[in-house]
């Protein structure tokens, strides 16, 4: 078997189907988008070559950079909520003795509920007219809070998108951390305890370093997903009000399909692709450097 798998041609043969599918579904559309980004096109008329004009327009497009800012804001918070929150939930789960499976299932429920259903639920919960569940509960504390706006307030709409996105996906990273926690050597923690280390010291000095590879992988996954965040912003707030919760993916969609500027939309899509690549490379470089140290 080892000699069989050692042959490069055989390995290439097994990899080939996956490479073909990946090329068709990812690489070719990216190349196609790069091509469209050099044109001015409304989707059904003639394409007009405009060179780098779309990319130059991007540099001075205030709304575009606002959406990039919102996306980075969302991404940073997702790292805190999903990675940080996932780690906390995993630690709690690992310490539980009873009802572990029940809580594991309950925590994971938001992941399997579709984004459409989840956003509809949240829209009802945080509705203003008629008041949703959340405002009704708040009005028990102060009656005037019954008309608080959450999804339609320019100050809180992005926060609501961040919260909903984190709530939906945190359990995925909880499971990854939980699996990693199970591989922490028992003998190490026991030895540390015998030497007088407390729980926090054991967590900081033994568990966390052990979880570092999983943490870096999770950060890359979360950043990658957050930079392309589209479904929850569009379903929950439609990027509003006044584009205050508009992410760069949503802005790209608006330019391409609502404003019918396919060329400019393609250029924005390329920006998102290269931005995601850059973050992944930076995080990997940090990981390699810290391993070296």
């Amino acid at each position, binding site marked *: 078997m080892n000699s069989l798998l050692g042959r490069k041609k055989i390995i290439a043969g097994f990899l080939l189907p996956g490479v*073909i599918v990946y090329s068709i579904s990812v690489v070719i559309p990216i190349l196609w988008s790069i091509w469209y980004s050099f044109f001015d096109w409304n989707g059904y008329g003639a394409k007009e070559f405009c060179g780098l004009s779309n990319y130059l327009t991007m540099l001075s497009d205030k709304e575009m950079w606002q959406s990039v800012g919102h996306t980075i804001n969302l991404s940073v918070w997702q790292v805190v909520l999903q990675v940080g929150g996932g780690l906390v939930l995993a630690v709690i789960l690992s310490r539980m003795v009873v009802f572990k499976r029940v809580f594991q299932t309950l925590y994971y429920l938001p992941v399997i509920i579709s984004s459409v259903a989840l956003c509809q639920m949240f829209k009802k919960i945080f*509705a203003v007219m*008629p008041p949703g569940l959340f405002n009704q509960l708040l009005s028990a504390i102060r009656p005037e809070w019954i008309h608080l*706006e959450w999804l*339609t307030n320019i100050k809180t709409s992005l926060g609501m998108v961040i919260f909903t996105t984190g709530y939906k996906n945190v359990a995925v990273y909880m499971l990854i951390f939980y699996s990693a926690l199970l591989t922490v050597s028992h003998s190490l923690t026991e030895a540390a305890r015998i030497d007088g280390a407390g729980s926090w010291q054991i967590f900081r000095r033994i568990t966390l370093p052990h979880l570092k590879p999983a943490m870096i992988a999770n950060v890359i996954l979360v950043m990658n997903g957050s930079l392309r965040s589209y479904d929850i912003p569009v379903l929950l707030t439609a990027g*509003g009000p006044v584009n205050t919760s508009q992410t760069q993916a949503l802005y790209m969609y608006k330019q391409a399909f609502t*404003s019918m*500027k396919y060329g400019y939309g393609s250029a924005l899509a390329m920006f998102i692709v290269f931005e995601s690549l850059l973050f992944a490379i930076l995080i990997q470089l940090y990981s390699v450097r810290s391993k070296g140290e």
Partner: protein
Amino acid sequence: MKKVISLILCVILVGSLAACSKQEKPQEPVQSTAAKADTKKVYRILSGSSESSTTYKVLKELAERYKNEVNPDFEFEAEIITSTNDLWQKLNMYITANNVPDIFSISNGLISAELIVRGELVNMTEELQKLGVYDNVNVAMKDFFRSNDGNMYMIPSGFNGEFFVYRTSTFEKYNLTPPATWEEFLNTCQILKDNGEIPYVMRGADSVMYLRFLAFPSWTTEGDSFIKELLAGETSFSESETGQYSAQLLYELGTGGYFIPGYNNLTLSDVVDTFLSGQGTMCYASTAFVGKLSDLYEQGEIGFFTIPQVGGKTANGASIPTHGGKGWGINKKSYDEDPVLQDFFKYFIEHVDEEFFKNGEISWMDTDVPEGQLSKLMNDLGKQMQEQPIAWVSWDDKMQPATLTTAGDAAQELVNDMITPEEFAQKLDEAIKANGG
């Protein structure tokens, strides 16, 4: 032996992928004739009106009647997209993919202009003339759907009118009367707000109602000349008195605190439902909602008023925006090649009046309304609608999509006091110049 095993495994892997992606080739739809048919074609309809709307009900009921009375093989499948933005995006995708549905909702605007140039829309003027009914079409509807070459390329999906609705008890409580001018409208809103009432249930989920408020002043004084000149670059929002008035009106409405909290998530349907649930004093509605409003109107609990006029300016008599909604267009290629589709269209035109009356609305043909067929609200509205000198001029259909997006975004900024009316006018002018309309 090992080579053989590995080759077999590779083939199985690739083959399994190919099998997964292989799709059952659907049976090619074969056209059926009115006389005989061996296989059925399923006609594709793209509708911008919901299943509960009279527009869709009329089409569906007539399709079913046609199937029962004329051609049992007639089948259709409808795709319904009620969000206007999403509808145009879907239609554009179908156009790009050369996969235009057989019958589809379409407005008299840029998309239809493109399809007309490509020869992909049936010339409805010619078809209605062949059927001998063109002269019966309401004049305002002909005006609303007339394209640049003077022909209609879509038929109205209804004869719609739009109006403001108000709660009579609240108005009586504060001695208010339906406002006749925009100044009175703002004053009414202020009095209601001062007394702790919610003045206006605003549609804010899309940009349609913002554009309505911007368009009303010019429509009631200049008809369609302002928007035509604006988009042709012959005038600007910043420099024209009309433009400045409109921007100021929207600004005062938005920043006055007159809109219901949470309005940014309300669609047109949500607005009417919210109003009917007892929230708010005024809202904007259309004849599509007459069914929901009739009972309250007959009980005297609600009233309606027409579009307020611009104080101090000469009105042109337009007071109720009448339009044919999103018209029904027919794919010319499908139509020319298919006698069944032609036959269905003929049947549709012959019976469309009856179906509209049955659904409690007036038809887009100038047909006499049978006695007692319509509700009191529809009767009262209908009389005024038929007297309108001009049809509604929809800015949504006239502006380039990119300009419309900018206008919608800028309008949201304006009502949230993030920009001034002057800055709003400037943004709109720049967008019109950059996008060519």
